[in-house]
């Protein structure tokens, strides 16, 4: 089912990004974003199915799956800027409706970087801190729900921190960097706690916790690099504006 959903998502993106502009004679969509979308969907398939998800009780395999699903896939999916693509492809009426939904109160609250990061971290703490992990390990239904939750909250948090798609109430770079650091700290503390107190019924818990800690650091660093690069580029625009009209000495 995951594979089917991902194939549909890939087809929809490809059509909107490359088929529609060609038919309407519009400007081309950057190929890198399409590649990011494909890579992100690939991570979703790998992380939610296959050998990584079926290794019950092996915390290292479990962590590898969640790293792909909750961190790498969200980063790639955010870099693909799906909302920007939807807004430029949809007919005017539908695009307006979409932007109204994006501006609505629930999404404004959820899309705030601090709320999104807290939601993401709290989900992890509930999953690993309570018995939920062992309870869902052997039943496919709840396990799938947990996977969807990990993907969605990770995606929401990454999207809120990076704000690459149009965001009506985007916070400044400092606030978003602080939110990212706070989320990373919660993630790292949890990883060390898992190392100290392995969840019941898991094997290779120490290796899993170290993978969570180190892998998490690498992806968080990448997110921070994207965030600050975006700031650097936007400062460049300010600088060229100053060249046109220099500020008084």
């Amino acid at each position, binding site marked *: 089912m995951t594979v089917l959903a991902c194939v549909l998502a890939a087809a929809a993106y490809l059509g909107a990004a490359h088929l529609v502009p060609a038919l309407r004679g519009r400007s081309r969509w950057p190929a890198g974003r399409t590649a990011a979308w494909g890579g992100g969907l690939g991570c979703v398939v790998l992380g939610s199915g296959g050998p990584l998800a079926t290794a019950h009780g092996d915390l290292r395999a479990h962590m590898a799956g969640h790293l792909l699903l909750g961190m790498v896939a969200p980063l790639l999916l955010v870099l693909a800027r799906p909302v920007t693509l939807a807004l430029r492809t949809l007919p005017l009426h539908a695009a307006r409706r979409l932007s109204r939904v994006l501006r609505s109160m629930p999404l404004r609250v959820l899309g705030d970087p601090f709320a999104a990061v807290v939601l993401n971290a709290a989900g992890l703490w509930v999953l690993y801190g309570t018995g939920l992990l062992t309870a869902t390990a052997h039943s496919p239904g709840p396990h799938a729900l947990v996977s969807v939750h990990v993907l969605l909250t990770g995606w929401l948090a990454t999207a809120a921190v990076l704000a690459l798609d149009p965001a009506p109430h985007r916070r400044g770079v400092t606030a978003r960097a602080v939110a990212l*650091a706070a989320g*990373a700290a919660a993630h790292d503390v949890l990883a060390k706690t898992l190392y100290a107190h392995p969840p019941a019924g898991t094997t290779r818990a120490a290796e899993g916790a170290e993978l969570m800690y180190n892998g998490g*650091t690498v992806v*968080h660093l990448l997110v921070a690099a994207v965030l*600050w690069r975006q*700031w650097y580029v936007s400062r460049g625009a300010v600088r060229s504006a*100053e060249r046109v009209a220099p*500020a008084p000495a």
Partner: protein
Amino acid sequence: MASGFRRAGGGQRPRASLHRTTEPPVTAPQHDRPWHDRRRLLLSGLLLGLGAAGAVDEIVFHQLPHWHHFYDRSTGTAGLVSDGLLHAATWSATVAGLALLADVRRRAAFAPARWWGAVLVGAGAFQTWDGVVQHKLLRLHQVRYGVDLTGYDLAWTGAGVLALLTGLVLLRRRTAG
């Protein structure tokens, strides 16, 4: 009529520049001036100093000689929390400091002495705080286990204080000069 044009930012350059002393043009942002460049340079140094000291502490002392480990049984909950927080804080500070430094350099506002002063202040403040608060007051972990700590503690905190003072001297000299 003509003054209306100038206020909108479209006047002739020499005449418009007379007006800028009272009314800056909208295209040049108020918040991006030399004073802000200096502040950004300072902030970049402080953040990178903090990040570097944290990274040295974590990589050199926690992981290489295994003086203290990823986790040892004596680490309490407070130690786990402080390790995670510090790890996230130091790399966040490093990335932010690098971005600020790149911007300052692009604006040709880089001043080596002032920047190194700020780096030393950031690193020294971190090291001193680590030595005094984390090691001694909170007793989260020690520099090394199973040996007499006096020399190690003196060297650890002394290095921090020395870096902090050197940095402050560098900064004061720049401000005076």
